[in-house]
C-alpha cells in the first residue's frame, strides 16, 4: 500500500453514482431480465468513465465506483446462491424511534435460506478486468476495489439456515475469501466495507454497547480469517455509521469501538471524520495510537451534502489528523460512498460529487505544502 511518504495522498470510499442507463440495467438484472452482454458493456463503459473522472479530480487511489453493483452489500445476492426474497422487516432504528416524523425506510431483508456458495464468480473477474483496463489509461497512484465484510452480509441477509451465527459468519468468510484473494491477486488494494462494526443503531438497536462490542469482536475475528494469506498492507477497511443523511443521534462513539477496530489485519482504517456527529473524533487519536503498519483514512469530505467543502477547510482537517498521528500515517478520504446503492437517487449530484473530490485533492495539496 502506498502511503503519504512525501505528500498527502487522497482517496474516497468506493461507490460513485452510476449512469442512468446502468441503473435501469441493474434493476433489470435484479428482475432476471437483463441481456448479459449489454450489461457487461454498460459496466465496462461506466467504469472507464468514473475512473477518468477520479483521475481528473486528482484522486491518487481510485476505484471502479462499484458501477456493476446494485449496492455495496447486497451485490452478493447476484453472485451467490442461498438467499430468499425480500420479506423480513428491519427493526426501527433508534433515530427512527426518536424522530418518528422524520421518515421510515421500511426496508425488507432477504434471509439466507440455503447453503451459501458461489454461482457466478465471473462477476468478480469482470469487475477486475474492467478496473484494470480503465486504470491503465489514467494517471493514479494505486487502485482499490471494495468488497463487503462477512458481518455486513450477515446483517443484510439474516440467517435462517445455518445452526448458529458463528457458523453462518464462518461460511460467509470462507465464501468471501475467494473474492478478497482475487482482488489482491490482481494487484489492487482490497477495501472491506464494514459498517457492521459501527452501526449498532441500524442492526442491533436494542443491544447495549457492551453487547454490541461482543458482536463486532466476533465480526472482526471472522473477517481476519477471511483475510488470512493476504498481507495486511494490501487491505484497507472502511467503517461508518451508514451513508445517509440521518440524524445519527445514537451513533456509537468511535472511542467505544476503536480498540476492536484496530484488531483487524488491515493496513488502513477508513473512518468518518467530516460530518458534525463525528468531526470531533479526530481527538480519539490523541489517546489511541494506530498499530505499526496501519494508516488512517479519515473522512475530510462529507458525502451526505451538496455543499462543497472549501479546500482550506479540507486542509485544516487533514493537518489536524497529521499533527496527532504523523503526516505519513494519513490518507485523506471521504466519510462514505457517493453511490452506495443504485436504486436511490444519489444524495449528492454526481457532478457536485466530482467537484467535492476536486476540493479533496486541492485541500490535500494545501495540507502537503504546510506539512512538508
Amino acid at each position: 500500500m502506498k502511503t503519504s511518504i512525501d505528500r498527502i495522498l487522497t482517496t474516497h470510499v468506493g461507490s460513485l453514482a452510476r449512469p442512468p442507463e446502468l441503473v435501469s440495467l441493474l434493476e433489470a438484472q435484479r428482475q432476471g431480465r437483463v441481456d448479459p452482454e449489454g450489461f457487461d458493456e454498460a459496466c465496462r463503459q461506466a467504469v472507464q468513465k468514473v475512473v477518468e473522472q477520479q483521475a481528473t479530480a486528482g484522486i491518487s487511489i481510485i476505484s471502479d465506483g462499484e458501477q456493476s453493483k446494485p449496492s455495496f452489500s447486497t451485490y452478493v445476492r447476484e453472485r451467490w446462491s442461498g438467499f430468499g426474497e425480500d420479506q423480513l422487516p428491519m427493526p426501527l432504528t433508534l433515530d427512527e424511534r426518536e424522530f418518528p416524523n422524520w421518515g421510515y425506510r421500511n426496508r425488507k431483508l432477504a434471509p439466507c435460506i440455503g447453503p451459501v456458495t458461489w454461482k457466478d464468480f465471473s462477476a468478480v473477474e469482470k469487475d477486475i478486468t474492467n478496473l484494470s483496463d480503465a486504470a491503465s489509461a489514467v494517471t493514479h497512484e494505486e487502485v482499490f476495489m471494495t468488497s463487503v465484510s462477512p458481518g455486513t452480509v450477515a446483517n443484510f441477509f439474516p440467517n435462517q439456515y445455518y445452526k448458529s451465527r458463528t457458523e453462518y459468519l464462518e461460511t460467509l468468510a470462507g465464501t468471501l475469501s475467494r473474492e478478497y484473494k482475487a482482488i489482491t491477486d490482481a494487484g489492487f488494494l482490497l477495501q472491506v466495507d464494514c459498517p457492521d462494526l459501527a452501526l449498532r443503531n441500524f442492526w442491533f438497536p436494542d443491544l447495549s454497547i457492551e453487547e454490541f462490542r461482543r458482536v463486532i469482536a466476533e465480526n472482526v475475528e471472522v473477517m481476519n480469517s477471511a483475510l488470512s494469506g493476504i498481507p495486511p498492507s494490501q487491505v484497507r477497511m472502511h467503517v461508518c455509521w451508514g451513508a445517509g443523511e440521518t440524524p445519527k443521534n445514537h451513533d456509537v462513539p468511535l472511542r467505544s469501538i476503536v480498540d476492536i477496530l484496530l484488531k483487524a489485519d488491515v493496513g488502513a482504517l477508513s473512518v468518518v471524520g467530516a460530518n458534525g456527529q463525528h468531526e470531533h473524533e479526530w481527538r480519539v487519536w490523541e489517546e489511541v495510537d494506530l498499530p505499526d503498519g496501519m494508516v488512517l483514512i479519515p473522512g475530510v469530505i462529507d458525502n451526505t451534502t451538496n455543499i462543497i467543502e472549501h479546500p482550506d477547510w479540507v486542509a485544516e482537517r487533514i493537518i489536524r489528523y497529521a499533527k496527532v498521528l504523523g503526516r505519513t500515517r494519513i490518507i485523506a478520504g471521504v466519510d462514505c460512498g457517493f453511490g452506495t446503492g443504485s436504486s436511490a437517487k444519489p444524495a449528492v449530484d454526481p457532478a457536485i460529487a466530482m467537484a467535492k473530490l476536486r476540493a479533496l485533492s486541492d485541500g490535500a495539496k494545501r495540507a502537503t505544502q504546510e506539512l512538508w
Partner: protein
Amino acid sequence: MPTNADRILTTHSGSVPRTLRLQQILLDRVAGKEVDSATFDDACQEAVSEALNSQVSAGVTVVNDGDQSKTGFAAYITQRLTGFDGPPEERVLNLEQREFPEWAGTRRGRRQPCTGPIEWKDFSMVTADVAHLQKAVAGLDQKPAGVFMTSVSPGTFTNHNPNRYYKTDEEYLTTVADVMKREYDAIAQAGFILQLDSPDLAARSNNYPDMELADWRKIVERNVEAVTYATRDIPEEQVRVHVCWGANAGPHNYDTQLRDIVDLLLRLRGKYLTVVAANGRHEFEWQVWKDTKVPDGKVIIPGVIDSTTTIIEHPETVAERIVRFANVLGKENVIAGVDCGFGTSVSPTRTDPKIVWAKLGSLAQGAAIATKKLWGSN
C-alpha cells in the same frame, strides 16, 4: 439571568418549522384563500409559544418567535406593504446553478418586483408579532438572557423585490429604509433585540452573479450604510445582523469568502454579528478572525450548527467550534449560533421539528462543555 460574562450563551438564526396548523393557514393565505383573522391570530400565538418553549427546553438562551407568522424571511413584507401588485419575475441563475445544471433542475426562483409606492398597508401584523412574542415570553418561568425578533434588511428587501418603480436604486433603498424603520423601531421599543436578516451582504452569487467582486462590494457598502441609517434610533446593544450565503444545501462553491467582506461587515451598526461557520464551505473561516481587528464591544455569533443537514452535531463538535472562536475573539465576545434558519420559508414539506430541537439541544450541550473549558468551574 445568564450573561455572556459567565457562560457561552446560545441562539439561532430565527426561523424554525411552523406548527402544522399554522403552516396550513399560511399556505392557504398564500394561495389567496380567506382565513378568519381570529383563527390566524390564535394559530400564531399558539405557534409562537410552542416555538419559544421548545427553544427554552432545548437550552437556548437568546430566543425568538421562530418567524412563525411569516411566509418567508423576506417574502413576508409584501403582505404588509403596498407596491407589489405586479406579476413575479424569474430570478437569474446563480453561478452554482450554471455550473451544475442537473442539480439545479428546472425550478427557478421568483422575485416580486416593486411596481408602485411602498407604504404600510398592514402594520398590525408587526404589532401582532410583537404582542405574540411578549405574551409567550411572559409565560416563561425564567427570563431568557435575550429575546430577539427578525426583520428583513433594506438590502435584502431590494434584492428580493427589485425596483421597477423608483427613479434610482438609491431612492428605492432609502425609501425602503425609511418605511422599514417603523418595523425596526417597533421591535426595539418592545425591548427585543432587532435581528436584520442580511444575506445581501454576502450572497453575491444569488443576487449579482455577473458582477465583479469590487463592484459588488460597492453595493454591499451602500447596504451597510442603509442599516446604519435605518437603525439610527435604536441603541446598538439592540441590533444584531445575520449574514449568510443562503440557507440551502447547494454547492456554495461561488460563495464570496468572508475575508473579502469582513471589513464592510464590521462597519455595520449593531453589537452582534452572526456568521456562517459550521458548514464545510465556511468552517475554516474562523481563521479570518485571527488577523481581523474587531471593534470593542462587538459580539460575534458564529454558526456552530449546520442548518442544512439532518445530521445532529455531536456536542463535542459544537464545543470545539465554540472554543476555537472564543480563543481568538475572547470568550465574552462569542455567542454560539446556527448557520442559518431552519424554516426560512413556509413550505409544504418541512424538517421534522424534533430534529431541529435535538440540534438546538446539541448546541446548548456543546455550549455547556465549552463554558466548562473556558471558565473552568461553571
